[in-house]
């Protein structure tokens, strides 16, 4: 179970709440103690979150982009998270675990924002306690129903494992499909020149990349104001320190 919590917090698309709820139900029959479950969950969360916090501190916003790729939830991934985090500060860690996407992104954000380690660990630990506590409480409250389900699963034996495996696979496929659709949507969305002009006029400063070939640039040295002229190789260098939600506009000839 601790492994489950750890995996989810490290960013794997495997939900830990069902496991925690079942564990909560089991506390009723005295198989496991509530304290042990909550303590292990906190420990597992802290290890995973701290790891991301340190990476965030070390690599800044770059790490967020990596994280977005692993967690397969780019939609909830960054923009809202960052806005929320800026609004609520460290207190957002208290509820972060309840919000999909936010839970994994908040720790590296705290790291990238240069927050203090002690403060981070305290808030993150409290957040993990609230989260695990709530899941366990639900399990305890609905223990009868959960026992019935568990009994069924036991009766089914190997089939149940297969079923759970399929369920997990479905969750992963669904998230992957969501991401794919999101990327397709992005790929189709183009900005028109008028929209770009309107952006500039509104005082926005999108990152404009001139991705024409070197010879095309030589041939026509004009460029859109503020545009960064960069060919394929240089691009990576140019964008390395940008935030993942930076507005980027590319143009060629």
């Amino acid at each position, binding site marked *: 179970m601790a492994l489950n919590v750890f995996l989810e917090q490290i960013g794997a698309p495997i939900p830990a709440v069902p496991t925690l709820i079942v564990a909560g139900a089991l506390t009723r029959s005295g198989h496991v103690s509530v304290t042990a479950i909550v303590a292990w969950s906190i420990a597992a969360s802290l290890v995973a979150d701290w790891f991301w916090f340190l990476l965030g501190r070390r690599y800044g916003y770059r790490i967020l982009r990596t994280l977005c790729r692993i967690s397969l939830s*780019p939609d909830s991934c960054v923009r809202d998270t960052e806005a929320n985090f800026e609004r609520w500060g460290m207190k957002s860690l208290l509820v972060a675990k309840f919000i999909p996407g936010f839970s994994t992104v908040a720790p590296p954000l705290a790291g990238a924002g240069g927050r203090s380690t002690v403060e981070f660990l305290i808030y993150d630990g409290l957040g993990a306690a609230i989260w695990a506590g709530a899941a366990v409480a639900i399990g305890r409250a609905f223990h009868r129903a959960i026992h019935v389900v568990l009994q069924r699963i036991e009766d089914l034996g190997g089939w149940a494992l297969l079923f759970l495996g399929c369920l997990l696979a479905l969750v992963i496929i669904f998230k992957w499909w969501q991401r794919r659709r999101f990327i397709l949507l*992005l*790929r189709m969305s*183009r900005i028109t*020149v008028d929209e770009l002009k309107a952006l500039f006029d509104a005082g926005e400063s999108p990152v404009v990349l001139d991705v024409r070939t070197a010879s095309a640039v030589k041939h026509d040295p004009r*460029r859109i104001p503020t545009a960064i*002229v960069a060919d394929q190789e240089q691009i990576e260098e140019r*964008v390395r320190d940008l935030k993942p*939600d930076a507005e980027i506009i590319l*143009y060629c000839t």
Partner: protein
Amino acid sequence: MARKLIDEGFTLVRPLAGGLDAWVDAGYEVEKHHE
């Protein structure tokens, strides 16, 4: 190219429809590139 940036984890990447030519044709301001 845009796809590569999206794969890099950027969420707000958009190609400019029509490219530089469309920008120039619309009569918007350009600057000279010197290098």
